[in-house]
């Protein structure tokens, strides 16, 4: 890709790109740690995740300001416009993913340490898949790779099924172990939060498709035979 005649414009776009990549790495770590904390019921790690959310919020604000600056000073069009518009949306989704990691961690703090939920539920496989999904969505942005984005769309469907199954498993366990009702309720909330995080990963990938291919695939994720919006 050629450079802009106005170098400052390139610098601003590069700065935005670098900040989003940094944000991507941060939320990846937040999700990875939250899943580790969940699988090992590691409350200390959960506390670290909660405190790290502020750092993500800081960079979220910087990215938003950077986008505003680019709009005000450079009035981007075509690929630049799509990039900045996607950046705003991706930033928002990444920030939400970090909030979810933090929310999962808060719920982990209320799970009874004596409850061996790891072996009886789908959480291990869900955690592995969510971490993969988030990593792939961040990579699809970093490398502007729509092939990865489309993979995420399909993997999300698989994960969704397992999450649904897991919900039923947790409900059954709850019925059999009423003494742990609060912990199981927390696990149901975590299960739901994982679904939300996966949803946002899909949202990031939809933006990547828009940015790279100029196609709006929102709301038509699983039927690409429909004409473009």
């Amino acid at each position, binding site marked *: *890709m050629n450079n*802009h*005649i*106005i170098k400052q*414009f390139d610098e601003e776009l590069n700065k935005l790109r670098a900040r989003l990549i940094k944000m991507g790495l941060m939320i990846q770590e937040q999700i990875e740690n939250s899943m580790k904390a969940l699988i090992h019921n590691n409350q200390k790690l959960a506390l670290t995740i909660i405190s790290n959310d502020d750092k993500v919020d800081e960079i979220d604000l910087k990215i938003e300001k950077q986008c505003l600056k680019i709009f005000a000073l450079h009035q*981007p*069009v*075509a690929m630049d*416009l799509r990039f900045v518009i996607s950046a705003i949306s991706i930033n928002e989704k990444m920030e939400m993913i970090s909030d979810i990691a933090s929310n999962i961690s808060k719920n982990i703090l209320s799970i009874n340490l004596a409850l061996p939920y790891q072996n009886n539920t789908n959480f291990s496989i869900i955690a592995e898949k969510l971490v993969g999904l988030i990593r792939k969505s961040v990579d699809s942005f970093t490398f502007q790779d729509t092939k990865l984005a489309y993979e995420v769309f399909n993997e999300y469907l698989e994960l969704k099924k397992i999450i649904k199954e897991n919900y039923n498993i947790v409900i059954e366990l709850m019925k059999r172990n009423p003494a742990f009702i609060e912990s199981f309720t927390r696990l149901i909330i975590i299960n739901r939060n994982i679904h939300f995080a996966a949803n946002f990963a899909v949202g990031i990938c939809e933006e990547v498709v828009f940015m790279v291919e*100029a196609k709006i695939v929102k709301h038509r994720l699983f039927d690409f035979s429909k004409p473009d919006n």
Partner: protein
Amino acid sequence: MKDTKIRIESLSVSYGNKPAIKNISMNILKNQVTALIGPSGCGKTTFLKTLNRLNDFNDTIKISGKVFIDDLNIYSKNINVIELRKKTGMIFQKSNPFPKSIFDNVAYGPRVNGIKNKDELYEIVKSCLMKAALWDEVENYLFDSALKLSGGQQQRVCIARALAVNPEILLMDEPASALDPLSTARIEELILELKENYTIIIVTHNMQQAARVSDMTAYLYMGELIEFDKTRKIFTNPSKKQTEDYITGRYG
């Protein structure tokens, strides 16, 4: 689907041996604003001038291909060039009012066309100044010199003057390039109002202006039509890399 107002077929123009327009074909739709963009010297103004045969005055020029306005080939031998030019009003980059009163500027064309009745002339002048969104500002100064007006107002006098001969097409060659942002906004607003009744072709170097006022955008580079599509498409997802490089400022 709107009707085609101007149909251009394999148009080529050269000055001596130097080609300025290379084999351009395109349809310009009625009551739409079509923007021509491209770097200096790409042939935008030459192209515009071929649409009302203003290039006729240049002896070195060679024109081939066809330009149809309402299915009439304007380069056929039996065309009445005066009648053609009445159909196509032109507004230039630098406002060029006659050193006369505002009234006389706008009444100039109708007078040449034989209208002498003062009431009739007044009605024409009033209506054209209203269409050019200038009436409220000059109503009480109609007989003052047009040269006393601001740049933006002078340009609107020129638009009113062009409208006074009832054209069907307005050709605008960077009509707001010498104006401040407020006057530019007024001209742009005016263009959007005028397209209800006129077919407008505007040459502009201001990308944002093309994006704001036009329905269709044509990108010309070194006399070639690189891309011609809906403005929304050109400014969000152009098909050609050359267009994208130009509009995003990567040209050069």
